[in-house]
């Protein structure tokens, strides 16, 4: 039976292709992609397609794609119902809480506002801390929000920390680590068990070496 895989465009794309290559799949069409969106593996019965991170989860959840490669950040922010079977070990970064050095949001008395691209992650984190905060959704350049006074602190992903430092923000806490994950549709895993097992085993071998 043929399997289809939804890969995340952009940041994770290159590393995903490298792993597929090493595991003896044939992602050559993906390397030279032009404007195509669907790519065939010439050596086996696999279809790849490139989509945005959050869409990868949606495709897998509906079973349109059997497997997906997507960052843990996107998984945490979604309300999905897929198996998350492998940590692919690349695309590493972390969720952090940061603010301007003069405001410690954990000690502030009164109303606390948090700006973030990841409202679900932010809400969950503060809920577990027993803090009642207001979360404001921001689409990009989250670092700007506390500087301009829109909010007291931010929840964001941090790779190196350079952007934060340049904008004078300090990390108050590390929420969790993030990396690329392999997700599987629940029904597909049961109906196409052999094909999916084989795919996972080959990928596993590459990342364990």
């Amino acid at each position, binding site marked *: 039976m043929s399997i289809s895989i939804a890969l995340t465009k952009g940041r994770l794309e290159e590393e995903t292709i490298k792993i597929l290559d090493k595991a003896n799949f044939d992602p050559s069409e993906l390397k030279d992609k032009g404007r195509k969106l669907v790519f065939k593996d010439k050596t086996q019965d696999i279809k790849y397609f490139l989509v945005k991170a959050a869409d990868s989860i*949606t495709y897998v*959840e509906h079973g349109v794609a059997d497997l997906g490669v997507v960052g843990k950040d996107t998984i945490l922010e979604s*309300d999905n119902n897929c198996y998350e*079977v492998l940590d692919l070990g690349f695309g590493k970064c972390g969720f952090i809480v940061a603010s301007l050095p003069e405001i410690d949001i954990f000690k502030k008395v009164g109303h606390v506002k948090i700006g973030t691209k990841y409202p679900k992650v932010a809400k969950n984190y503060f809920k577990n801390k027993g803090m009642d905060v207001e979360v404001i959704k921001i689409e990009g350049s989250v670092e700007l929000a506390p500087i301009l006074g829109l909010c007291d602190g931010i929840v964001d992903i941090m790779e190196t920390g350079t952007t934060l430092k340049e904008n004078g923000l300090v990390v108050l806490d590390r929420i969790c680590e993030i990396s690329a994950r392999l997700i599987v549709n629940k029904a597909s895993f049961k*109906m196409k068990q052999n094909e999916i097992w084989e795919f996972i085993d080959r990928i596993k071998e590459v990342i364990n070496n």
Partner: protein
Amino acid sequence: MIGGVKMNKKNMLPEGTRDLILDECVIKRALERDIDEIFEKWGYKEVITPTLEFYETFNYNSQTLREEDMYKFFDNRGRILVLRPDMTIPIARVVETKLKDAKFPIKLRYTSNVFRVHESLGGKRNEYTDCGVELIGIEDKKSDLEVLVLALEALKKLGLNDFKLEIGNIGFFNGAFKNLDIDQECREVIAQFIEDKNLKSLDDYLEELDIKEDYKKFFNKLPWMFGDKKVLEDAKKLAFNDEIKENLEYLEVLYSQLEALGYGENVTFDLGMVPRLNYYTGMIFRGYGEGVGNTLLRGGRYDSLIKASNAHVPAIGFSIDINSVIPNVQLNKNLNEGENVYKMYYSEKNRIEAIKKSEELRSQGYIVELLPKENIQEIKMVKGGER
């Protein structure tokens, strides 16, 4: 304004709902009928319960669903009502009240719409039809097999190319905690990671816990323990207490019985199945079909949900989500445009005659649609459903 046409609420549907029209309806009704007929032939009696229930009924004692997953509103006295999110709880309520003096076992069936609030724009249905059965009043060894066979028969009837019934046992997971001093919260976290086959998080979480390596190894292996009957053999090697062993042996017995009945090909196992609906107490199972992206059938044993004369009543049941199969069923055209479908055209002067004649044909089993037409002298009959 969209494209110059003003859309108002009058013409729109709430999120997650949809209209079923023409062929979709024909397919849905046929599926419902076929499955209902199987249940009826096995002696299950139909129940119809209200679409509305008190929120208390679903919240009491079994936090099976999150508050925000239910449609809620108030009655005129300010009490909270819900659109029923599942049928097992209403049936438990019926058994505890209306059927409390009935003789066990009680076998019930239903075809009912249930409602769940899903995240918006996810493409999921918020209203769907469940066809299901509940077998109440006899313990596992005397009733599990019957219900599994019914589930397999119902899946077969859907006419999919291939289908699988996957069996697990919550006792397998719960049994592992028997001698473990772990609080409920940790247990739920572990359950969730296993259910989602989230290996990385499970491993990290177990690492932090103060439990023996044996247990860690066992929990880490659980998510991978699914597949054909061979997994039962593999699992036996890891079983570290009698309860786990007994649960495995029971699954083996069930498998050999199902195999003897000719269902061997369609039965698989997943020992890492730990459903969120926390009323399950023993065997649990799920059905999957080729080309269907979600779980088609869910069921299991729930021995502590129903109470009668102060004692728990053993019970088991399952339901099939009819809506998710509809796109995969090819409409058998004969259902719609059989030999016996006619259109009858008439003019004003022979209207009475046309009605009489059509009634006569209907009583002989024909489907006759009446259509007025100007400028025709005689009544005209045309075969078939198309105009």
